[in-house]
């Protein structure tokens, strides 16, 4: 089959590889019908995530048709159309039973690195480095899905691939980030980053009852999309952001702040240069510009919710401000399994059509070019879907 393989920093290529086969009893093989490139794939592309091996197949947002099932998979059959969560969860461990699916104890075959770096291993992920299990991803013609009896969800025939594909990651990720804010009627939510996850945060915050959403970015095309989602949008390059937020909330600050940017924040000014230097000299791994601002801006007793990916160590984080204001922090990989059915219901009721984020469509064979254009945001590239 054809699959997009990681070769090294900023080097990916579509290669011919063997077809996947059933290895464990709870596996299924899915024939991919639609897959996507995620912003977090760019962290791999840019070489920020360690434990990648040349030849690893990328992709964690995908859906398709069941072509084969292991003997322990009784809820799926050949021909079923399914969306697959990017987090791999066994369904039986302490964490899965508590619906902390992205903390599954039993899906990572090689948890040693994560245990050393994080104290414990989170769940494995598709196509996201050997620290997270080394599973082959779904930017391919076929994919092996472990624990297929608890992950993949069957989708209604009347919904298109593009309407349901993002249930695999970014829609639940934005939704969980908003849910983590414990939004109360009348709340103001500020969202850093108007990429696909940020846009889903904005839409989800409104679905959950926010009165106002303020969207922050420096890419005008993305700010325009945020406005289309109903947010007030601000270009942080043109204002003193913290002062602007204080004025717009009449001194109180946003009730909750969502950092939908993560470890590759493009800071400006002295702090931005400082972070780049620290990261380049390996004195810090992540650049937390957005997170710093979110902490400083958030109202007293508010919530900072972090769907943006962080991988390592942060420097100059204003913990004193977080403590003084009594902030709540909520973060982590999305417990996708928990959100699949409720969010399918919202799509079916017409409350949201997740396909609004798609800007580019490519053949899988052109995936390498798609990565390049996505990483440079050429033609206002926001979300790429790939068709095998």
């Amino acid at each position, binding site marked *: 089959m054809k*699959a997009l393989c990681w070769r090294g920093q900023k080097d990916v290529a579509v290669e011919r590889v063997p077809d996947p086969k059933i*290895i464990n009893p709870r596996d299924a093989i899915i024939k991919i019908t639609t897959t996507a490139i995620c912003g977090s794939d760019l962290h791999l592309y840019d070489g920020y995530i360690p434990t990648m091996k040349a030849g690893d197949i990328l992709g964690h947002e995908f859906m398709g048709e069941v072509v084969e099932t292991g003997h322990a998979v009784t809820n799926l059959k050949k021909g079923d159309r399914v969306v697959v969560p990017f987090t791999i969860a*066994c369904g*039986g461990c302490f964490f899965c039973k508590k619906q902390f699916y992205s903390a599954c104890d*039993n899906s990572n075959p090689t948890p040693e690195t994560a245990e050393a770096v994080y104290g414990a291993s989170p769940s494995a992920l598709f196509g996201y480095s050997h620290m997270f299990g080394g599973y082959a991803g779904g930017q391919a013609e076929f994919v092996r899905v472990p624990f297929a009896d608890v992950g993949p969800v069957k989708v209604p025939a009347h919904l298109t691939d593009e309407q349901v594909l993002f249930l695999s990651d970014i829609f639940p990720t934005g939704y969980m980030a908003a849910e983590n804010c414990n939004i109360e009627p009348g709340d103001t939510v500020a969202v850093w980053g108007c990429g696909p996850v940020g846009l889903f945060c904005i839409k989800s915050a409104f679905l959950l009852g926010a009165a106002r959403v303020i969207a922050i970015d420096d890419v005008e095309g993305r700010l325009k999309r945020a406005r289309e989602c109903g947010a007030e949008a601000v270009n942080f390059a043109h204002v003193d952001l913290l002062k602007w937020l204080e004025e717009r909330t009449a001194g109180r600050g946003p009730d909750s702040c969502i950092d939908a940017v993560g470890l590759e924040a493009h800071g400006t000014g002295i702090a931005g240069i400082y972070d780049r230097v620290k990261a380049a000299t390996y004195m810090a791994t992540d650049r937390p510009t957005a997170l710093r601002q979110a902490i400083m801006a958030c109202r007293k007793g508010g919530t900072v919710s972090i769907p943006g990916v962080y991988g390592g160590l942060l420097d100059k984080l204003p913990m004193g401000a977080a403590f003084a204001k009594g902030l709540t922090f909520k973060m982590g990989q999305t417990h996708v399994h928990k959100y699949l059915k409720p969010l399918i219901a919202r799509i079916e009721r017409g409350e949201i059509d997740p396909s609004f984020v798609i800007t580019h469509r490519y053949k899988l064979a052109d995936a390498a070019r798609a990565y390049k254009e996505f990483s440079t945001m050429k033609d206002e590239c926001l979300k790429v879907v790939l068709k095998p």
Partner: protein
Amino acid sequence: MAATLLTTAVKSAAGSGSRVARAVDRLPPARTNLSSTERWLSLAAGGTVAGLCLTGRTPPVLSTIIGTGLIYRALTGSCPCYRALGVNTAGSTKPRTAVPAGHGTRVEHAVTVNKPVADVYRFWRDFENLPRFMTHLIDVDATTDGRSHWIARGPLGTAVEWDAEIVTDVPNQVIAWRSLDGADVDTAGSVHFVELPHNRGTEVRVALKYDPPAGKVGTALATLVGKSPESQIKADMRHFRELMEAGEIPTIKGQPHGE
């Protein structure tokens, strides 16, 4: 040697019956890992090096370091290098069991399994399940009367075999076993089960002891070329939890990969 050479020297210098000697007597026994033969050899070698140093026949700094090191391990009976390698030549005077105290390699590990204690106990009590999660085991054949025949991977692709018997079996609490005379490897093990309150699963604590055919050197070599016994038992117990909770052990072996 009941008293170490060092404590004997201190006591004789301070005078027997003195406060120093009484204090020395109250010290806990030193953690020795050298046999008495090896300690006398160390003392002799250390003395020789020190003597050569005094006559100016060797570089003074190097020989001082080597000589002091040899005399230190002779006096204390403790060698940091051996300790780092897990080697112990001190032996033991305790009565013989499957693996006498001070012999062999002892490893322990605990995991919490999200299953009722009865399920966890029942799975372990069937020793034929053990090779499913203990990677060094090839096969365990449970016979009658709590006896079993074990085949395990030995060094350099060999197989080692032994018969074992269950010595303790308290349902849902503890199982303990040991190898019988004539074993290729003297071994003993135990597993304790504790059900946690409020359906939080079962704590499983395992302890294994092995006296491998090549002895301490074999264990040290195995550690150098592969997993240490500690990381091996940790991986095995993780596989046990995976089998109990997920019904299978996760793997990526055999999945497609680019060139």
